[in-house]
């Protein structure tokens, strides 16, 4: 009865409230996810519509500007290479189609592995306590003080040409500490809560309590931590690539910037060579930041705003 008496405007208001009531549907999160999906879509659709062979050196004329611009020699951009080409004769559009998802892939994979290690160690430390806790805590604390780039530079120089997966694995070795500590702290406080003690009393196994009872309550934290880790991993990966230590023949955004700097792109005013990958990296980081802010709202209701 009450519903039928509402005006249309009131109904719309209610729908909107309901929608914003769902914390997962906040605009920051949607925008962030949208930006990242956009980059993934660029990679997937681009591979179909554009020739991925153009990422290899010598496959196009050198140093062509994007359409509508002129380079220092007075050549203007051509339709065959709409975003221009680099100093090694690689098509910029093909480079970002292949390179941007690669960069994202390294970040996601490294973070995924790092998180898995972090979840396992964090739960073990927090729940089991005692010696296990001491060992894991000290290990994580020590690892947190070591600057990852320093170690990774040495590692990658020793490995020579690495694959994307190997690079992700190496980075994963340096992104498990913060999730470990975060989860350990949460588990310690959760251990005292009624439902956990109830489960213990009813004889549930340790792993059951850890992963079936406690883990679901940690999901928002885990997501937040995961996204933060993706950002860290991408920063680390790009840092290595910009130093010329990433994979050599597999295009990534960082390596493109490295090659641009190395070949004097700044002085030759080949702005598209370093500018386009930089722009994409910025988009990626803004996307990740928005997701992080959105997830904050999910896990912390006080941040939610009613419109």
């Amino acid at each position, binding site marked *: 009865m009450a519903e039928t008496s509402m005006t249309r405007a009131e109904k719309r208001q209610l729908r909107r409230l309901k929608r914003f009531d769902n914390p997962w549907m906040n605009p920051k999160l949607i925008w962030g996810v949208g930006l990242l999906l956009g980059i993934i879509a660029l990679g997937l659709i681009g591979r179909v519509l554009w020739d991925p062979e153009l990422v290899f050196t010598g496959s196009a004329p050198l140093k062509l500007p994007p359409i509508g611009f002129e380079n220092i020699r007075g050549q203007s951009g051509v339709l065959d290479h709409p975003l221009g080409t680099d100093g090694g004769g690689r098509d910029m559009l093909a480079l970002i189609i292949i390179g941007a998802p690669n960069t994202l892939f390294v970040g996601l994979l490294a973070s995924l592995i790092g998180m898995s290690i972090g979840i396992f160690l964090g739960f073990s430390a927090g729940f089991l306590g005692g010696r296990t806790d001491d060992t894991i805590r000290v290990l994580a604390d020590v690892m947190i003080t070591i600057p990852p780039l320093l170690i990774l530079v040495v590692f990658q120089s020793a490995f020579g040409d690495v694959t994307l997966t190997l690079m992700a694995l190496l980075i994963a070795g340096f992104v498990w500490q913060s999730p470990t500590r975060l989860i350990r702290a949460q588990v310690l406080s959760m251990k005292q809560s009624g439902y956990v003690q109830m489960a213990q009393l009813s004889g549930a196994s340790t792993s059951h309590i850890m992963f079936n009872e406690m883990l679901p309550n940690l999901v928002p934290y885990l997501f937040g931590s995961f996204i933060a880790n993706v950002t860290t991993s991408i920063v680390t990966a790009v840092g290595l690539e910009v130093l010329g230590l990433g994979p*050599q023949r597999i295009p990534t955004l960082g390596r493109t910037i490295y090659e641009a700097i190395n*070949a004097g792109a700044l002085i030759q005013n080949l702005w598209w060579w370093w500018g386009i990958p930089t722009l994409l990296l910025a988009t990626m980081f803004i996307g990740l930041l928005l997701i992080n802010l959105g997830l904050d709202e999910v896990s912390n209701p006080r941040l939610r705003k009613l419109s």
Partner: protein
Amino acid sequence: MRISKPLLAASVLAFAAVSGAAFAQDVSREETVIFDLDRTIQDPENFNWMTPGTKRMHGAHQTMWEPLFILNYGTGELDPWLATEATSEEDGKVWTVKLREGVEWSDGEAFNADDVLFTTNLALTNDEISSREASTIKAQVASVEKVDDLTVKFTLNNPNPRFIVENFGVRIFGSFLIMPEHVWNGENAATFTFNPPIGTGPYTFTSATSNRAIWDRNDDWWGAKTGFMDLPEPKRVIFLESGGEESRAQLMVSNQLDASQNVSIGTFEAIKAQNPNVIAWYDDYPYAAADPCARQLEINTTVAPWDNANMRKAVAHIIDRNQIVNVALEGATTASRTMFAEYGSMAPFIDAVVEAGFELPAKADVDAAAALIEGEGWVKDGDYYTKDGETLSVNIHVNSASIEYTKTIDLIVEQMQRAGIDAKSVPVENGVFWGEVLPFGAYEMSYSWLSCGSVNEPWASMGRYTAKDVVPVGERSPGFNNTSRWDGPEAEAYSAIVDDIGNRALGDPEIPGLVAEAYKHLDAGTPFVPLVQSAKLLPMNTTYWTGWPTSENYYNHPFFWWNHTHQIIHNLEPAG
């Protein structure tokens, strides 16, 4: 704001004090010439040039140590320097060198035949010293004796009409530098650090760190006193490690560098657009000066599957030289037709090789390569060839000091990948590349120019790949010769002919025919694949100094890391 202003002023002052201290002793920028150094000085406290490392090209053999003669690339003659003349007897088996009168070390001691005798004997008797020049002396000289204070007589193992230009004439990069006996006497030449160093040159050592070396003029230089030459104009010479192409370019634009190492054409044009005072060898495209060291892909002939000559020939077929010229070098050079540098004086030998049918094609012939590889039992499986479950792959070591090198190898990697070989580039730091990778054979393939040497006769280049210089992997190749470790019947046949060429006088009419005959064996063995001619685009800045070597002002070539740079520095005039 009130606080920050004095703070700012203080920090500016502090910065000025710090940067001022680095270039102390009030030599103004107008009186200083700054050269670019393309590597880190790994051991700035050590000046023993007979041991490996950056001991010469950071200014030591450009300002402090002088050669006996300097080969003038413009005239083809030897310009006398510390020596005045050299004569030979018995077709070049005995050489008499006359030293210049009045030459002094910077500590006032006289430079004379004793120093030459002492240094030569060091090279002959000490087995541990390893520089290329010392190894060459050791291989060639049987004995040396003093005739009088200014005359030295060398007796060689075999007649060598090129003895002087090869060892004392700065034909390529350096020369056998004479060291002061009164300082070196009693020291172990393999471990002595020679610090502080002295020389006969118009500059003395002031200071060095890993990224720069400073040399100051010695106003008491013997050359000015004897009337040999005026004192050079620059009061101070600095060799500064600039870093990569971008920083080289920025330093040239902002006049903080007077002569830069090689840059790409695009970068040079950008520098010129921002600083019109910057010049190069030619006024116009392609700007660059021909370098006698043509580029090559060196193949280690001891590592399977590249120990098989057919596999090496297949690699030679895969190389597309035109693409290297157009992409890696932006059209600034030409494809090599033979192993030789395309100098006018090399034409008879290049023509002989071309006529004999061994001219290298500018384009690739991937089908010919596939036939050779499949002939050795490899089968293409997907992207790559495989045999017994093993993928055909290769690591190519490349010196990371210049983008010319890395771009060329990136391209060769691409060409090999497309032809079915899983090639990878392994960039290595300059010092490691020359110090550890190449001489010890610690590579499968590498990018280098080790067949470099010939500028007016064929032997200097061809003689670098003879079988007698083969040493096992892990031992140092003598003087970077035959780092491919090319051995076997073809190599023996080649070496026999090359030795014959080596014993003949310059200009012997039979030499071109012999070159073609030797080349047949070289082609069959393919210990290296000649790639492209080298051209060096060296930006030089006329803001503070003029008189740089150019095609119009050709007193000698512009490669200012060579021992002949004394001539460049003597030719510099203040621009103001």
